[in-house]
């Protein structure tokens, strides 16, 4: 595997920062070498420096987009952390449903959904645990900047390895069908999720509704303080006044973020607008 020249690594870092606000540290060139390996094989006979140069000089944006997508962290799995089995289903969701009983509407946003396991987990959970919601206007919006991840998410097709991670067997039997070596989320569940291409640090679609629940788990940790504040201020406007923002277990918010903590567990933290 070729080593990335410092100037090419610098180009790559700038590109990632400009497009998706991700701060790639100085000493992570080895990560870039590993993540860009297959793209380099496809376009520049395995030469990663040539790949970065080609992407930077490309009059079209296509290769630069592919480069960014290859560098992005797609770590996700079904029912990631038992947050979905605890605070979410036992407290937060029932309380919220009680408050929305008159309007019978619930809007949820999985704001960095990667390959779709998070929004499908929510869709399955609502179907399984809260059947009365079938009569409600429930909207699950799932977004990501990566076209590649969104395409996989929309297809709802997952490998055995992905199926074995976090998905209870009962849900596998109820909501998936096997297709060769892959498993596909059944259409009624797929239809419950509205996948959209949204880059959190760029302009958001105007038609996005105000949300009751926003999941932004394990995303802000990759952003600079300035970008984190920018995204949070937009989230603050997008969340209903008594809605919830869910972050990952390792994440916390500054006092001036516009959100206050309402619950923290070892699996994740819940916040509400101040």
């Amino acid at each position, binding site marked *: 595997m070729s080593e990335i020249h410092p100037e090419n690594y610098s180009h790559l870092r700038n590109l990632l920062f400009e497009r998706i606000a991700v701060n790639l540290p100085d000493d992570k060139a080895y990560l870039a070498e590993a993540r860009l390996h297959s793209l380099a094989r496809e376009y520049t006979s395995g030469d990663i420096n040539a790949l970065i140069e080609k992407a930077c000089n490309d009059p079209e944006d296509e290769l630069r987009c592919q480069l960014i997508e290859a560098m992005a962290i797609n770590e996700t*799995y079904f029912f990631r952390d038992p947050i979905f089995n605890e605070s979410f289903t036992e407290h937060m969701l029932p309380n919220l449903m009680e408050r929305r009983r008159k309007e019978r509407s619930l809007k949820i946003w999985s704001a960095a959904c990667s390959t779709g396991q998070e929004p499908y987990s929510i869709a399955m959970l609502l179907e399984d645990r809260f059947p009365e919601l079938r009569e409600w206007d429930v909207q699950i919006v799932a977004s990501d900047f990566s076209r590649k991840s969104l395409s996989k998410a929309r297809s709802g097709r997952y490998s*055995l*390895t992905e199926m*074995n*991670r976090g998905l209870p*067997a009962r849900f596998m*039997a109820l909501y998936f069908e096997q297709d060769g070596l892959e498993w596909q989320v059944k259409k009624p569940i797929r239809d419950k999720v509205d996948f959209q291409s949204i880059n959190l640090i760029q302009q958001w679609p105007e038609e996005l509704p105000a949300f009751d629940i926003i999941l932004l788990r394990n995303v802000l940790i990759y952003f600079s303080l300035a970008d984190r504040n920018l995204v949070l201020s937009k989230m603050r406007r997008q969340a209903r006044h008594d809605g919830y923002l869910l972050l990952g277990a390792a994440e916390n918010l500054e006092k001036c973020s516009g959100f206050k903590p309402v619950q923290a567990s070892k699996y994740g933290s819940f916040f509400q607008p101040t």
Partner: protein
Amino acid sequence: MATPQALVIDDSRAMRLILGDLLNQLGYETHEAGDGQQAISMLEEDANIPSLALVDWNMPVMNGLDFIKAVRGQNCYTNMKLLVVTSEAEVGHMVEALTAGADEYLMKPFSSEALASKLEMLGLRHA
């Protein structure tokens, strides 16, 4: 705290070794059986009931499904979690296993991470 015990039931010795190794890494002391009948004999002979049994599907003498039915038919094993570990990935088998009383289902091949995730799902502690 006492070391948690797990019973690995699989007709493949190689698989028993792999599973035993993974469980040891997760903090379990393991016991092995080559089929369901042997596993039942071991359970009957030992007063200590393991907190977990990993159960293969296809085995001679007594297969995984019959083992699950036999164990779930006895009150003394209510707290023993049954995790089916199999290359049988058909939904029909999964439903049969869950209906008979299996707690979870893990499809081969799998990673140690996937096994740990299933144990967590079952509320079992691991290292």
